[in-house]
């Protein structure tokens, strides 16, 4: 059955949010920002495993690039310290630049892959870098609501 949603605009205005799935952080390598690539069961029928894992792995690569302690971060740190950190008033930090790239990447992924499947990714930075929030919308194309969703009365959005 064809999915009901074709673009991001429709999704954002739709009131038929079924559930939200939260991808947790992966702390196995320390406190660096990394998300678990384990495929959540609630998304089983909605999206291919490979696509989803690719998205999370790419995000993890971006965050690793942002948090890399190496030559460039030393340069940035020393230069900033020498100017008593006033340089941050006019210059964007490397982390902020990467966050912008991530925001663009998530937007692109939503438009191309997730919205046509009735899903929506929220940028982790809007959730305190704690989780990747995946909003699962009701698939009007299929009969009835999806069986794997746990619908709670508090969840539905205005």
């Amino acid at each position, binding site marked *: 059955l064809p999915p009901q949603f074709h673009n991001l605009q429709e999704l954002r205005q739709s009131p038929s949010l079924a559930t939200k799935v939260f991808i947790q952080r992966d702390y196995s390598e320390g406190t660096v920002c990394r998300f678990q690539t384990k495929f959540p069961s609630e998304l089983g029928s909605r999206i291919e495993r490979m696509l989803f894992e690719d998205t999370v792995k790419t995000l993890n690569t971006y965050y690793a690039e942002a948090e890399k302690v190496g030559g460039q971060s030393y340069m940035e740190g020393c230069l900033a310290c020498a100017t008593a950190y006033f340089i941050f008033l006019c210059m964007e930090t490397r982390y902020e630049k990467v966050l912008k790239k991530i925001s663009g990447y998530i937007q692109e992924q939503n438009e191309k892959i997730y919205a046509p499947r009735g899903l929506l990714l929220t940028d982790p930075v809007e959730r305190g870098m704690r989780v990747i929030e995946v909003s699962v919308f009701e698939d009007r194309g299929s009969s009835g609501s999806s069986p794997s969703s*746990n619908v709670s009365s508090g969840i539905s959005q205005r």
Partner: protein
Amino acid sequence: MSAVMMTRKVRKWEKLPGKNTFCCDGRVMMARQKGVFYLTLFLIVGTCSLFFAFECPYLAIHLSPAIPVFAILLFFFVMAMLLRTSFSDPGVLPRALPEEATFIEMEIEATNGNVPAGQRPPPRIRNVQINGQIVKLKYCYTCKIFRPPRASHCSICDNCVDRFDHHCPWVGNCVGKRNYRYFYLFTLSLSLLTIYIFTFNIVHVVMRSVNSGFVKTLQDTPGTVLEVLVCFFTLWSVVGLTGFHTYLISLNQTTNEDIKGSWSGKNRVQNPYSHKNIINNCCEVLCGPAYPSVLDRRGLMRDDLPVPTSAAEPATNSNPVPQTTKTTAPLIPNEHTPDDAKPSIADSANAHAEKISPSPREEKLPSLPKSSPTPTKVPPLASPETDAEASFIAKDKAL
């Protein structure tokens, strides 16, 4: 009585939970009590003013004009570091929105399974493996999240802070991931400034005494006495503190972890975050990336104000607006986690020598009778067990 919803645009900082004060339309973020911070400012500015007024003219002429120039540079650096530490977001973790909180609750219920009636449910702990060591993540009842490793809840500011070091009343803010290096540079530069002023006070008094005599020198420059007093007491505390934090940085530890003894003792885990190399540890803490704030303070959001009138016209929010008002548990009123150990600057220098035991655990509420979870009802919360060891003992007794 029907109501018309009036929406006005507000900045997100106006709706943030927690006990912070904000200035400059959300650009500045501090703790509520700022009295000690004003004292710090007064002491630094006051002492330096006296130095520039009394010592510098004499020393510039008789020794070198470089002396006041360097003093001014150092003074500006100290002030810049102090203001950066005090005004920036220490790394506050935003609270979980209702959906996320519910999701976590469901996960906890699924993990714990069925608890027989009358028994206390097991504590909310999540075990993660970090660099081969098992670390326990505690659940924060106020913020409704499992705290990331090294995060802790500051009861003074009522926020979970990432890589929480301590709450410092002298700077009027928490010290955490985002402002730790500014705090360290502040203490370091203040130590240098104090030593600098103290040294040149002595030099100045000695030089003047050779010409005019000791008593007359003190009468000519009364400011010197004040300066020497302030510097003498500041030296011991600030230099000691700088030394303590240098030690912590070399081991990649926080004050909070040091006081709780997280990584010391025979049966405890070794510090999984340390690179086992002093240079690497220092580089990570001081030269690591500048983390951005995840607390969107200046973002705009719509605030719905009900205005009672006869006509009814509900406001339509086409875009989902994140609700940042206090999230409360469905059945139990919002409760605060017991104090984590939060030493002031004066304590932290001494605390290294002694281990302060965690604050006493408080029994909040008796566990409610558990109803079988249905899709439409959220399961009731149980009483919090905040200390992992006590929770293990309770679990053993429950079994």
